[in-house]
């Protein structure tokens, strides 16, 4: 983790007693944590509760987190353990093999039988997804390319600048413009 890493900055603040900084880690990772949990949990009704439990555990364990590994890797482990404990507490057997960060993509628990979700919220989240992906499709090529390299390939601005053969400042501005454009569509949708 580097100095510029936001997670690192936040964790330092939390470790120094600035509890409120944790809210940003929650907001940043809640979707990803919930996504990991869906691979284990069959009943989506519990998802919000277990997600919450994961973050409370993370908070409690933060004093011992040193940042040798990425925060996300660490968070991932806590999430998986929480999911397993939860399953055990429900009298279900956790998957026999661990799902690792690396192989997470190939493990698809969503195929498993799942209790029916609330159709309305399913529709709503599909709409949110649709709006985001649709807006990206319609972005000017250079904006679309910049945000894709960033979000899908995880490249740094410098790497993107090299690929796109433009200054880093331009990359920074393109990514922001892409986000801003999507956000303009997304915001009203989430607010109602």
């Amino acid at each position, binding site marked *: 983790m580097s*100095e*510029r*890493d*936001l997670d690192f*900055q*936040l964790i330092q*603040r*939390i470790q120094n*007693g600035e*509890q*409120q*900084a*944790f*809210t*940003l880690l*929650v*907001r*940043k990772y*809640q*979707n*990803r944590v*919930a*996504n990991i*949990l*869906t691979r284990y949990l069959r009943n*989506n009704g519990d*998802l*919000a509760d277990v997600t*919450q439990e994961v*973050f*409370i555990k993370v*908070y409690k364990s*933060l*004093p011992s987190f040193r940042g040798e590994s990425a925060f996300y890797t660490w968070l991932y482990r806590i999430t998986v353990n929480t999911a397993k404990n939860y399953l055990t507490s429900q009298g279900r057997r956790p998957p026999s093999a661990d799902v690792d960060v690396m192989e997470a993509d190939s493990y698809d628990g969503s195929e498993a039988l799942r209790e029916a*979700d*609330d159709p309305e*919220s*399913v529709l*709503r*989240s*599909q709409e*949110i*997804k649709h709006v*985001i*992906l649709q807006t990206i499709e319609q972005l000017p090529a250079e904006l679309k390319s910049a*945000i*894709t390299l*960033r*979000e*899908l390939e995880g490249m*740094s*601005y410098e790497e993107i600048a090299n690929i796109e053969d433009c200054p880093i400042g331009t990359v*920074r*501005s393109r*990514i*922001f413009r892409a*986000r*801003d454009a999507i*956000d303009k569509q997304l*915001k009203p949708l989430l607010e109602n």
Partner: protein
Amino acid sequence: MQTDNEQLSALIDNEVVDKPLVDELIIDKMQQTKFARYHLIGDVMRDEVAEPLIDIDISEKVMAAIKAQAPSAEVTKLDTAVNKMPSAKRTNIVSLMHRFGQYAIAASVAGVVVVTTLMTSPSVVENNDTGLEVLSTVPLGGAVTPVSLQANNSKSKQALKEHNERLEALLKDHQLQLQLQP
């Protein structure tokens, strides 16, 4: 505002250190929702979202839960002077047992583990010309089966367990003393 948001975008991508911006972000709910939406965009692109949790924000619940149990989750600070903490000295000593029991010793160079699986070893490493019974410890999960406790005729299981616990405490104290050498 525009530049602020561009700064926020760069912050998300770990491309900037902007302390005042983080300060602001921690208190400004509006900025936080934007921060969350910016992340949601990436999460959706990578298909790392759970459906239908996609737009539910649990951060407030989490923070409320954390605050409710704040004392137990207290974050320790550098060199928190012992006398500044209420009854810290007592708690320190009590919890020390727990802590050392768990780890400190294992981390030290010559960590010695598990005396409970004592066994008479035929392949003792030391040439034992003292004519004494030599026992060797095996690590937990080791392949060797421990000697049956029944073989220890006159000694009750409980006494043996007590004795082993005490030996382990001695080994740990030895490690601790090494650490605290003058």
